[in-house]
């Protein structure tokens, strides 16, 4: 793996020689192995090191960014010159500055209990061949199984004109598994994603076989036993997976300050929260039962980091607190524009992308009930344990979740599977309807999309089960 810190330092020093308000240089080297299997057959094994460096400059109120994967001083000069030219020719009326931060000198890394480097390619492939065997012998007809695994060893070196010098190393493993189940001439399909920051112990944490066999059986049961729900107002219990996606989509995203300021308006969109609008910090958006946080410091989580990509120390952020809009996610640019401090939410996927405001691990904090207690108190409703199709509008207010594993609840008891129940509602109605939250928090891995060019970034979504009263389900 190549990480020429001397070139990164040189780029920063060269940039500091120009009339800049702020400059940073970041090197990144990423050893990535990718496995792609179809029906247990390895289509291809790709293994490569992607490395390079970038420079970001704030000068004359503009921002310029340039990167290269050619590690030479000449190239570093060209990159700095380009970034400086771009910053100084932006001609902005409203000058951009970065919120104040002190320089930090540190090193951090994520521990591997079982080092990825010590796991042979054969053993890596074998994990997914075994998964395929387990799925094809579980008693469910599965004509198509797709699996992809990415194994990343990510080294970063960050320096800036305020004296920061931060080195980090993060091993990360992610897997996607797709199953298409066929019964009675019908099909049902599901994607599952798994993610972990750490070593090969990820597979023990995930129980990927058990999870996928369960998913296949659920899909079979939806075909063979599932019944449509009679549309109407009813109680809905969201399992942790549904709680998590809602936390991500209708809490995390609208609380991203760059969206609130309009910087993403042409791509991922804006937010129902904006200055002068009906929602701002302190406005009620949910019941008192609801507290949603974003926390990069959850150990071994898919979205883990100790310092963000602007060198700001990571910490938990309370987004919705006791049902009130509480704290936005910020990078240094958005924080300065809103007159506050950054809170360590600046992330990038690679050396050739600017760091922007991102979530890390967004989840609902647990309550005091058991899941059984949530169900016991429902006369008529649906338990939506997991979801399939979902989406939300670009102001993050109108969302829809379609159940994958779901059951009818009658008089406090779980009954037959419900085929694809749908909740299609607003952010305000969804979070306001929550009256009880269970004790157990579970997480699911996801890849969050944003920016142009797209930066798919690893996150966790999660939370406990939540009970929503009298919402429309169809």
């Amino acid at each position, binding site marked *: 793996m190549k990480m020429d810190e001397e070139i990164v330092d040189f780029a920063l020093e060269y940039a500091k020689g120009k009339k800049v308000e702020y400059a940073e240089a970041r090197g990144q080297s990423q050893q990535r192995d990718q496995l792609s299997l179809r029906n247990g057959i390895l289509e291809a094994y790709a293994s490569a090191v992607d490395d390079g460096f970038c420079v970001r400059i704030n000068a004359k109120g503009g921002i310029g960014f340039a990167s290269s994967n050619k590690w030479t001083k000449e190239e570093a000069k060209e990159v700095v010159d380009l970034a400086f030219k771009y910053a100084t020719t932006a001609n902005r009326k409203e000058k951009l500055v970065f919120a104040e931060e002190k320089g930090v000198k540190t090193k951090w890394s994520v521990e591997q209990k079982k080092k990825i480097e010590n796991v042979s390619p054969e053993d890596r492939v074998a994990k997914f061949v075994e998964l395929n065997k387990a799925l094809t012998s579980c008693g469910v007809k599965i004509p198509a199984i797709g699996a992809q695994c990415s194994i990343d060893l990510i080294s970063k070196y960050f320096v800036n004109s305020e004296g920061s010098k931060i080195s980090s190393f993060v091993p990360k493993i992610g897997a996607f598994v797709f199953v298409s189940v066929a019964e009675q001439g019908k099909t049902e399909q599901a994607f599952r994603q798994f993610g972990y920051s750490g070593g090969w112990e990820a597979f023990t944490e995930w129980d990927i076989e058990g999870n996928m066999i369960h998913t296949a059986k659920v899909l079979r049961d939806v075909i063979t036993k599932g019944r449509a729900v009679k549309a109407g107002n009813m109680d809905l219990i969201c399992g942790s997976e549904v709680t998590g996606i809602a936390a991500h989509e209708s809490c995390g995203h609208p609380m991203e300050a760059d969206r609130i300021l309009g910087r993403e308006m042409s791509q991922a969109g804006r937010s129902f929260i904006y200055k002068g609008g009906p929602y701002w910090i302190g406005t009620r958006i949910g019941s008192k039962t609801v507290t949603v946080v974003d926390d990069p410091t959850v150990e071994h989580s898919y979205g883990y980091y100790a310092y963000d990509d602007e060198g700001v120390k990571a910490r938990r952020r309370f987004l919705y607190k006791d049902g009130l809009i509480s704290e936005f996610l910020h990078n240094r640019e958005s924080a300065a524009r809103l007159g506050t401090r950054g809170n360590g939410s600046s992330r990038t996927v690679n050396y050739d992308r600017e760091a922007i405001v991102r979530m890390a691990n967004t989840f609902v904090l647990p309550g005091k009930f058991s899941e059984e207690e949530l169900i016991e108190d429902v006369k008529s409703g649906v338990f939506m344990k997991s979801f399939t199709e979902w989406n939300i509008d670009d102001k993050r207010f109108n969302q*829809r979740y379609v159940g994958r594993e779901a059951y009818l609840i009658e008089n406090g008891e779980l009954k037959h599977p419900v085929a694809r129940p749908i909740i299609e509602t607003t952010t305000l109605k969804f979070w306001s309807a929550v009256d009880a939250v269970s004790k157990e928090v579970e997480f699911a891995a996801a890849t969050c999309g944003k920016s142009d060019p797209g930066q798919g970034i690893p996150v966790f979504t999660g939370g406990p089960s939540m009970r929503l009263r009298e919402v429309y389900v169809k």
Partner: protein
Amino acid sequence: MSDVLNKTEEIVQKAKKLGADEVLARTTFGKYRQVRFSNNQVDITVAWNDYVTDVALAWKKRVVATQIHNFEDVDGNVKRLLQLAKVSQENPMFGGFAKGKFKYAANKADKKLADMEDMASYVSGAVDAAEKEAGGKIDSGGILYTKFEDVYLASSEGPIGVDARSAVEFSIRAFVEREASGHGVECSSTLKGFDPAKAGRKAGEIARLAKGPKIGEEGAYDVIYDPLIFGSMLGVWSNMVSAYSILLQMSVFVDKMGNKVAPEFVTLKDNPAQYSMPNRVFDDEGVPTKENVFIDHGVLKTYLHNTSTAKLFKTETTGNAGLVTPNAWNVEMDGSNMSKDELFKGVKRGLYLTNTWYTRFQNYNKGDFSTIPRDGIFLIEKGEIKQSLKDLRISDNALTLLGNIAGVSKERQHVHWWGEADPPSLSPYVLVKDVHMTKSK
């Protein structure tokens, strides 16, 4: 630059010498530039230079791939790759890389796009055009993106070629009110005729018409799709004709070869032609690219293939090879004799949709999905726009929508936007009957 081709060929020769059965190497020297703007001002200008060789090789049907940057440590990289192949697993479905010597069309990439000067002024010109068309103050955001790539491909199986690929794209979303916006795009392979102000005017016009939106009503509507939003659907169908999607059952076209899947006047093609953003003269195996009609007058005619999937399906490659799986490059829908205005006149009561995002499927095989229209959503009565609407969702089926196409305009636009209208396409205005719309309750 033949030096680069020589170095690319050397990688192939080294891998062969070390024992690889088949080897592909593709070197890309790319210069990419982008201006991002919001609130009518430039937020950041970005440049990234890429010097990379993608290498794929097969040893006893074990397929492995890597990337080499700037030709550094070629020997070490090739050795490691071959070692990886030897401990990897056989893919009995691997049908080899494309074989033969091919002649390629001359490329006509625009060198001005290697380092376009004064990109910010293109942006400000388009923002001004949007504001003028909107008839008042706007809040706009978007991107101006340029690409220039020199591509060198060498294969142990015969193909060898050089290509230059250029593209320029402008995308603008303009708001006249908090919930009244329009989106316009301008896409090309060259600067000649590239007019970002046109995209600005389109965004401004839609935004002006979208003022004062009311929440729409659920139901089945006749819908006129703007070229931009229809580009999203063309992307969905083109992904589903990739042979890889068929093999994974992630397609509504499984077991439908030769079947009528759309009305007779619907013809869809893949064609990375010179005008298009993904223009290229060969695919990632070195096979010359060409026009592939995959739905011909309503009948499903072919899937899109690389050499391996073509062998599995007992047919020929269509020149759609990516390094691992086949994919569409640029989708074209044939136009008709009918004008856009005539298409509108034929709608007694329906909707005009201009853009969408967040398309997600419950089941790719069955085709059930939903997507969320954004920017202008309009109620049409007697061919005229009557009311701006908001907060509606298309909740329907991909195969049903294809079958319910009822009219196509002669006007077509080359469109691409973010990951939503992707891959790029040549897209007309299209009338689709009985599209199901839902909303929050």
